[in-house]
């Protein structure tokens, strides 16, 4: 009987220490989430304004400006940029990104995949490992962005995609990542990256402003395009980063809760076992005494 008691006691001890770890991880994630959230909030006005500027230029442009980055070609070769995290223990976050990527490849680009024309440029270690294991063609120069998250690092990956697109190594580039909604929800999306989706001309209601362009409109467009594209990837990475911490926080919260439930049950069975042991002992003594008297 005391053997069983000890077993339960040990389990209680190990569950308690696991719970301490999950609780700590939850706190850490909450702190990191706040920071990640801040940086994405800082980022949004910049991205928005850049987009606005582009549409101002485009709406002021005489039609028929050709942009090599917006050139639409028949889709033969595709590059996917799935953004995952470097670390696990964040629920289904990484596997959802990977699953969505594979699903899109299977549904929309099965023919290209059969010819071996689907390439993956993973950002984040988990995605890198997964796609390597699954046997996809992987560009492995940029997956470390999360170890030192800065605009410069992310830009390198974005520039690679743009140059490869211009050199016709790929005809289409898509980013798969998770948009940050709030700490508990992420929206997993696939966004077309290249060719640049057609810019909507400023709505008709907006009155047209005659801008001066310095140096010239063509030069501005040529300079602005890569900037916007770099920013877009950076924004996706920040979104993914915030989502990751959100997902980890939720996962760790669930884990702590589960540990609590487990502890409750273990304590009940521990007390029951203890009670049973005492009762047996008492019965033994009482019946022993009764036997002596009798």
């Amino acid at each position: 009987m005391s053997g069983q008691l000890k077993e339960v006691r040990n389990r209680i001890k190990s569950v308690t220490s696991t719970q301490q770890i999950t609780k700590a991880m939850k706190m850490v994630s909450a702190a990191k989430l706040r920071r990640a959230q801040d940086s994405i909030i800082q980022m949004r006005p910049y991205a928005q304004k850049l987009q606005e500027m582009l549409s101002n230029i485009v709406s002021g442009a005489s039609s028929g400006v050709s942009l090599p980055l917006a050139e639409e070609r028949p889709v033969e070769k595709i590059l996917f940029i799935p953004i995952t995290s470097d670390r696990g223990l964040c629920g289904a976050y990484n596997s959802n990104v990977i699953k969505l990527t594979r699903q899109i490849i299977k549904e929309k680009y099965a023919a290209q995949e059969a010819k071996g024309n689907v390439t993956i440029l993973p950002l984040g270690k988990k995605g890198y490992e997964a796609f390597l294991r699954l046997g996809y063609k992987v560009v492995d120069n940029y997956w470390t962005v999360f170890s030192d998250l800065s605009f410069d690092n992310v830009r390198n990956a974005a520039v690679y995609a743009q140059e490869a697109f211009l050199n016709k190594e790929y005809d289409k580039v898509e980013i798969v990542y998770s948009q940050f909604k709030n700490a508990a929800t992420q929206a997993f999306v696939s966004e077309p990256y290249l060719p640049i989706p057609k810019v909507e001309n400023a709505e008709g209601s907006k009155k047209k402003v005659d801008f001066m362009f310095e140096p010239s409109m063509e030069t501005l467009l040529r300079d602005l395009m890569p900037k916007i594209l770099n920013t877009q990837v950076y924004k996706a990475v920040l979104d993914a980063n915030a989502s990751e911490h959100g997902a980890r926080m939720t996962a760790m919260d669930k884990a702590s809760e589960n540990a609590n439930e487990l502890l409750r049950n273990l304590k009940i069975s521990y007390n029951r076992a203890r009670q049973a042991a005492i009762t047996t002992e008492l019965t033994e003594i009482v019946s022993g005494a009764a036997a002596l008297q009798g």
Partner: protein
Amino acid sequence: MQLEILTPEHKVFSGTVYGIQLPGVEGSFEILDRHAPIIASLGKGKMKILKDKSATAAYEISEGFVEMINNKATVLIEDAKALD
């Protein structure tokens, strides 16, 4: 005029100013109050905010863009360091 200076990582400046000196790709230029709408490309160099006729603040900036519309100027740059 209203001035806003943004980088991807944070907001550098926001407020009412008298004018701003910027390093254009084809030479330095200045935007003063009530300038006509303009979009310009900026090179690396020194940017000077003219808060009023005597107070100024200088920044070392990397390339970017400036847009001026309805007396509101927005400077979008990749990085800015305050100089003193």
